[in-house]
């Protein structure tokens, strides 16, 4: 699949598959096309050539089975809404669109709030959340849709290292029941928790996590990269 913005090629002949209940880390330099790839999978963009298939269907037909956590919140934090109502938004499309929320949807988010560890924040206004807490709310909103494929665009960008570890442990657990693609710049965390690493810089190279070496990373980023070893 190839994608261009005008004359600029963003993704060049990318061939990428994710298996059922597989967790893949997507890395690469800024502007390398990572977020664009997720938007193509979501059906928000269309490829210039080639095609995208999600769960055997077109992206738009499969959209309701995809959970998506964007890199930046697309809403204003002053919006008058509480955490549980944001999470409930993930239930849109699973039941009827109209009228008040059915009781089944309200019950369905209980387990999600527990799993993402934000039950205690449920009545809090989103304006009163830290960056890390808001990130968890967005993840809970994506999980409320009971997705079969979860796409996360830099979900740990505003989280401290303890929070990052617990989020990656959560993603690892989630991969027992869904496919997960997570964009991250933190190669240390990625290699500990994912099955494969996909390196994207206009073109895609896929590595098993063991094969991720300083040489392959430098080649991908096109510049010298400092390797810092973390002890987890």
């Amino acid at each position, binding site marked *: 699949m190839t994608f261009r913005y005008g004359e600029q090629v963003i993704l060049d002949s990318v061939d990428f598959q994710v298996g059922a209940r597989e967790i893949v880390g997507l890395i690469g330099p800024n502007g390398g096309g990572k977020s664009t790839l997720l938007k193509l999978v*979501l*059906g*928000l963009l269309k490829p210039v050539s080639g095609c995208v298939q999600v769960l055997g269907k077109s992206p738009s037909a499969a*959209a*309701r089975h*995809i959970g*998506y956590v*964007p890199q930046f*919140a*697309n*809403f204003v934090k*002053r*919006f*008058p*809404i*509480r955490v549980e*109502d*944001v999470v409930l*938004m*993930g239930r*849109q*499309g699973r039941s009827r*669109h*109209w*009228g*008040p*929320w059915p009781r089944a949807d309200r019950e369905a988010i209980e387990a999600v709030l527990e799993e993402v560890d934000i039950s205690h924040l449920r009545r809090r*206004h989103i304006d009163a959340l830290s960056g890390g807490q808001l990130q968890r709310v967005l993840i809970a*909103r994506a999980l409320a*849709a009971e997705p079969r494929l979860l796409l996360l665009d830099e979900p740990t960008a505003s989280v401290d290292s303890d929070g990052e570890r617990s989020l990656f442990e959560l993603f690892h657990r989630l991969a027992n029941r869904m496919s997960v693609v997570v964009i991250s710049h933190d190669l240390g965390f990625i290699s500990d928790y994912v099955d494969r690493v996909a390196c994207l810089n206009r073109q895609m190279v896929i590595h098993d996590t063991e094969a991720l070496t300083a040489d392959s990373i430098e080649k991908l980023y096109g510049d010298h990269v400092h390797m810092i070893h973390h002890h987890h």
Partner: protein
Amino acid sequence: MNFITALGSQDFLQNALFTGLLASIAAGLVGPYVVVRRIGYLAGGIAHTVLAGMGIAYFLGANPLMGAFVSAILAALLIGYISLKGFDQEDTVIGALWAIGMATGILFISQTPGYKVDLMSYLFGNLLLVPAEAISMLAWVVGGLALVLLVVHRPLTAVIFDEEFARLRGVPVKSLYLLLLVLVAITVVLLLQAVGLIMVLALLSLPAALAGHHARSLGMMIVVASLAAMAFTTGGLAISWQFDLPAGATIVLVAGIAYLVSLVWRSTRGQRR
């Protein structure tokens, strides 16, 4: 005669109060969506195109209120369609319709022979001139507005909160956006009865903005905005009666002062935290 005594004996004052209360409910129902979606300017554009509809209706000898509804809804759909299709920027389209609407209205009014007091009451608002038969129609429209919002509140909130996410969940984003604009258009025409064309934006935005200082959900914002707007119209009408002032301007000033007090109260409370 004081306001309470007059209310018991003067039919036209009762009509004015009922109209004001119905317009307040409409403003409270729709205003919060306008404020959180930040489309106050759009409501202003619709309000001014209404003049075209009223002018044409007046020229043809038809009911100016009907002309107002038709032109407001057409303007809302046109602005929404052009903005969704990306033909031009939304604010440019609104500015163009704003000017064209007023110019068309004034041209038709100038060509209409006779006495123009009815139209002037739409322009500047005069609660005391609202006929009794208009009230039952307003009540039906406000009831319909409430019913529609009860049905679409959930998906509409999803669209206003995060349009991209709502689209991914299969919510009909474009249709709901156009519906919101039509509801804004209907409310603008209703508010014209109470406070007039020039002050429509105030009643649509001030009670909702005040409610936004205190409410933690859009639903609660709607309840608070409706109650606040009802208090402003009743209080403003009473003051205007007592001191022989124009009703529309008094209502808007009461709402404006309450909004400023709420803003100061919220910011000082925030500083103490």
